[in-house]
């Protein structure tokens, strides 16, 4: 029935099966949107955030999702700027994932702020000293870039192609894609960094505060590098997952390995820098603010194990694994390493956002805990469902993996 929309030379499941696959996600999206409405119309009292835990699940999610979505900018950077042509096999998928992650994050942010209708005041009265201003400007612009990058993928749809002017438009746009990739890379560098700076500048939170290198705290650079490191791993994981679910070969094994190698090489740099940064923080930054680093780890739940898990288990270990060619060639280990790398970043963003707020600052403060409300969880799940739906439709009707046709005919 929808055959004429599906790309030539690839097979897709029946429309019925597709319907079965998307309906749970659609339901999740509807429930999530209901929660979103509750938050928008009744206010943020629908969440379990409070004056002490002013940021919660959503901000954590935004930071994580944007780090993982970094695959889009970094793959684009490698492909268009550094001319790693092999990555053409995944660039379309990366763009879609990037678009999902960024639009999802922006959507959640709009629910997260108390007065969404005033959000544009940031453009009107920007405070150039604020990391959040940087984040807002860059993310907004980059989301537009991603949308523009997404458009050619859509326009290449078998049916849409028939409209000649669309084809011309797509062609012209494609010629400009290098420019967009460059702009996107630039913007991404900034906002990934600013997201790191978001917490690194908090002088009032000695657990998160880091000294400045130039005008940015070290977390600015660590966030850029860590996002660049796990972006490819996340592309690798999503590609493998789609391949597993659909039972189709989508890219050549070399592409997986290349993604792993890129990820590993950057991750090892990141782990090294992160280790140095942590040592400086333990021995200098934190004590100079009157807090021994050990005092942050004396609370049940957040022992030093979390630091070990973040830097060694999910940092150094996957980095070394990904740098080893033998391990990379074994698909299962490659996946394991990519998964560990992504987990490392998920932990890092958790530590920066949630643990920072849970820890006391005043000498008589208590250690705080926070459990998100169902509305917060449902909103989060709505982003997941939204991503699943956008990706599912994109996969079905657009060419996300150019190598698929070739590999299918093998």
């Amino acid at each position, binding site marked *: 029935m929808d055959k004429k929309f599906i790309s030539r030379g690839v097979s897709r499941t029946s429309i019925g099966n597709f319907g079965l696959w998307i309906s749970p996600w659609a339901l999740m999206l509807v429930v999530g949107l209901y929660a979103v409405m509750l938050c928008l119309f009744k206010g943020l*009292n629908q969440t379990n955030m409070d004056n002490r835990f002013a940021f919660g699940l959503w901000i954590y999610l935004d930071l994580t999702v944007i780090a993982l979505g970094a695959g889009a900018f970094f793959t684009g950077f490698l492909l268009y700027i550094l001319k790693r042509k092999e990555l053409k096999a995944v660039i379309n998928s990366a763009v879609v994932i990037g678009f999902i992650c960024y639009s999802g994050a922006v959507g959640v942010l709009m629910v997260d702020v108390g007065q969404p209708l005033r959000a544009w005041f940031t453009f009107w009265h920007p405070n150039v000293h604020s990391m959040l201003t940087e984040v807002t400007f860059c993310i907004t612009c980059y989301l537009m870039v991603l949308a523009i990058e997404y458009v050619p993928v859509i326009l290449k749809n078998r049916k849409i192609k028939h409209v000649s002017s669309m084809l011309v438009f797509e062609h012209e746009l494609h010629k400009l894609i290098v420019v967009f990739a460059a702009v996107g890379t630039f913007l991404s560098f900034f906002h990934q960094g600013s997201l790191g700076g978001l917490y690194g500048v908090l002088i*009032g939170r000695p657990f998160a505060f880091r000294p400045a290198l130039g005008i940015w705290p070290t977390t600015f650079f660590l966030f850029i590098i860590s996002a660049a490191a796990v972006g490819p791993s996340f592309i690798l994981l999503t590609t493998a997952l789609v391949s597993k679910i659909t039972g189709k070969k989508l890219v050549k094994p070399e592409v997986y390995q290349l993604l792993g190698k890129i990820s590993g090489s950057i991750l090892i740099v990141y782990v090294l820098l992160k280790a140095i940064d942590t040592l400086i923080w333990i021995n200098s930054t934190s004590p100079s603010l009157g807090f021994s680093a050990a005092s942050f780890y004396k609370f049940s739940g957040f022992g030093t194990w979390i630091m070990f898990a973040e830097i060694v288990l999910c940092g150094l270990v996957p980095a070394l694994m990904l740098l080893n060619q033998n391990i990379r060639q074994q698909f299962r280990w490659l996946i394991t390493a990519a998964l560990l790398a992504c987990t490392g970043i998920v932990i890092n963003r958790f530590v920066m956002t949630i643990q920072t707020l849970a820890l006391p600052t005043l000498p008589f403060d208590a250690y705080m805990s926070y459990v998100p409300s169902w509305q917060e969880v449902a909103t989060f799940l709505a982003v997941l469902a939204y991503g699943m739906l956008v990706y599912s439709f994109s996969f079905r009707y657009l060419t996300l993996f150019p190598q698929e046709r070739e590999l299918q005919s093998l």
Partner: protein
Amino acid sequence: MESNEKKPRYGMVIDLDRCNGCGNCTLACAVENNVPPAHENANERTGITWMRVQKVDNNRPYPENRSVYFPLTCQQCDHHTPCESVCPQKAVEYDTETGIVAQIPVRCLGCRYCMTACPYHARYFNWWDPEWPKGMETALNPDVSTRMRGVVEKCNFCHGRLQAARAKAAVEGRRAIADAEYIPACAESCPTKAIYFGNLADAGSEVSRLAKEKNSFRLLEQLGTEPKVYFRSEQSWVHEQMNAKLKTAEKEKIHG
């Protein structure tokens, strides 16, 4: 010439030994600043108390336990004001003329970044729309606007009172206001006179004299944000408690 005079730096010294934790400061503040009564679901972490009194004890079990009450408000950081620099849309204002850090709720988008930035937990978010029992809205203070849900608010040393004092001085043809003309509601309402308020930049003022005493200290002074709210106590355990972390940290630095 007036320009030779130093600009005022308003600040407070709170005598912990005089505070009996009655809560008048919290209440007078809410009246002055039109803070509404609690929503039925509000709690200690979602309520709005620009001035909040917290009991702090020496962590010793009964019967050696001793406690003091800490009236906690915005500490009015004078240097690298943590909340001011993080606001994306200039809804936090540091007044260079007075040193007062004020929130502009009508410009606030409610991102709450400032709240995570403040180590004193002095900022409050409006989780609900304000509601007053029927008729009580007619008893609001005309000098302060009400806020709506979704924005952040906090202590501004009763800025409305400063404006009023200035307006009065202007009408009378004076350029400066006298010390007694401007006092925040919390300090005014304290039945034990535990809150001293005044100009820290004026070396002759009582607050600047008290702030320099050896029994005076500031919370998280080591962060370097130069808060303008001082506390004082003659009880040694209070000082030990407040500096506990500083000392451990120093020790580790020496040995590490």
